[in-house]
């Protein structure tokens, strides 16, 4: 469908769980999806549509029950290996300062302290955390914690960036600021992004392409290409029209 190479290809993936009650629960059925290099894809769906399950499979935390997922042409073997993740409730290390949190991944790669320092300084600039780099997560506001989480995921220079409803807990105002900043970051360091959200307008603000998942079991329902020029005006006729269409597909 696109001339760009596929960065992520999801092929006929299904996932079943055994619930605590002992019953088998089908979370996802037969999902196929290709995501091109540097593409920004939003996955939208109601709760229970398996969107987080899908993301966790791409991240390597879960294995598909059937089907295959390739990242950069290679079968996924587990988490890590350049798959950057921004978690729903952030998962910042509470005992590390913002800077140390950002440097955590590079430290694991064996990067020297001075290199690490340079990199984290760069990222702190990028996500506008100057002056807060030596604060612990609990001393930061929700939006700032969010910036740390994004910078931490970017620090390992990931092949793909997976974001699981990262702005879900923020108030509307902060959320809009973070959306703008995320787009700036994305345009300055091109990355392939998979972004999970339940907000239709958020997906239209951000995405090149919107994937709508249906429920019971989770399945691919529809796709929308978003061709509107960025930054996108939420009040423009086209925006509102698209919003109504996506919303319609969701219902």
């Amino acid at each position, binding site marked *: 469908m696109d001339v760009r190479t596929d960065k992520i290809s999801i092929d006929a993936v299904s996932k079943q769980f055994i619930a605590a009650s002992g019953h088998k629960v089908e979370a996802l059925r037969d999902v196929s999806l290709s995501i091109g290099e540097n593409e920004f894809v939003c996955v939208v769906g109601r709760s229970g549509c398996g969107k987080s399950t899908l993301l966790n499979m791409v*991240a*390597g*935390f879960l294995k598909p029950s059937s089907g295959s997922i390739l990242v950069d042409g290679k079968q996924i073997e*587990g*988490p*890590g*290996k350049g*798959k*950057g*993740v921004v*978690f729903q*409730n952030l*998962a910042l*290390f*509470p*005992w590390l300062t913002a800077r140390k949190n950002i440097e*955590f*991944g590079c*430290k*694991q*790669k064996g990067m020297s302290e001075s290199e690490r320092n340079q990199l984290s300084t760069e990222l702190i600039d990028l996500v506008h955390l100057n002056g807060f780099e030596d604060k*612990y*997560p*609990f*001393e930061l506001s929700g939006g700032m914690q969010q910036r740390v989480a994004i910078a*931490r*995921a970017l620090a*390992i220079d990931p092949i793909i960036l997976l974001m699981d409803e990262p702005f879900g807990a923020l108030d509307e105002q902060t959320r809009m600021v973070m959306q703008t900043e995320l787009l700036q970051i994305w345009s300055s360091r091109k990355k392939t992004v998979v972004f999970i959200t339940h907000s239709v307008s958020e997906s239209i603000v951000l995405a090149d392409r919107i994937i709508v998942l249906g429920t019971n079991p989770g399945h691919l329902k529809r796709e929308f290409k978003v061709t509107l020029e960025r930054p996108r005006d939420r009040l423009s006729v086209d925006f509102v029209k698209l919003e109504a269409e996506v919303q319609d597909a969701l219902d």
Partner: protein
Amino acid sequence: MPLTNQNIEEPVSESGAADVVSKSFLNTHQWLQPVIVFAILLGVWEILSRVGMLDPFFMPPPSTLAQTLVELITEGFPENILLHTHILVTLKRSIIGYLIAVALAIPIGILIGYFQVLDIATQPFVTFGRSTAPISILPLFIAVFDIGEVSKIALITFACFWATVTNTIAGVKFVDPILLRAAQSMDTSRIRTFVEVILPAATPRIFAGLKVSLAIAFMVIVAAEMIATVFGLGALINEARTWFRTDITMVGMFVIGVIGYVASIGLDRLEHRLIPWSQASRSSE
């Protein structure tokens, strides 16, 4: 843990203007109120003794207790053992026993918490050890180590071990799984995950164990000292009883309380210094 003024600042009642006034009074004079309450209490206590409504044998008045404190410091009791000697003996026993317990319990707890099989296998023992009254083991220790210092220190070690080990196991076992996932997503090796994620994540619970154990140490040592010795604060208050010196018993209890309080404040401070992120994140919960 002792209630701090923080907890008091927000009383439940929101019943109106009178409350608001007293609240602001509270905030500016927080230290004053307890002081006034105590001054009144001590005064009433003293007067009731003087007019003969409180029997000084059962309830010596504050003025007597003050004199007794001076007497304990300058002349000592029993057999002229000075107060500071009792304090040092008790402190030495409890601190040595406590430190040995901590040095054993933390590594063992980490091991058990990390390996699930060990955790399951040791669960009956840990539950049992935690549940049995520590002092009941003293006769065995006396049989093995004789009635000297070693049996008392061994008792403290035994008593403190269980609370520290339980909390350490829980700390290692209940690391937020999302933090482990985050580490995995950044290609963290198993060893580094253990050192850089699991251990730091376990420290708040380990500290909780250290605090509980300290309280247990003071409780157990006081009882152990009542059973067979004349040195130590437990011996002091029990000997005083056999001599019908209620005043000495009460002053001794007061000293024990002060030491326990200071020690727990000390550990709080230490915690705040070593893991500032923990207390703050807890109080904001």
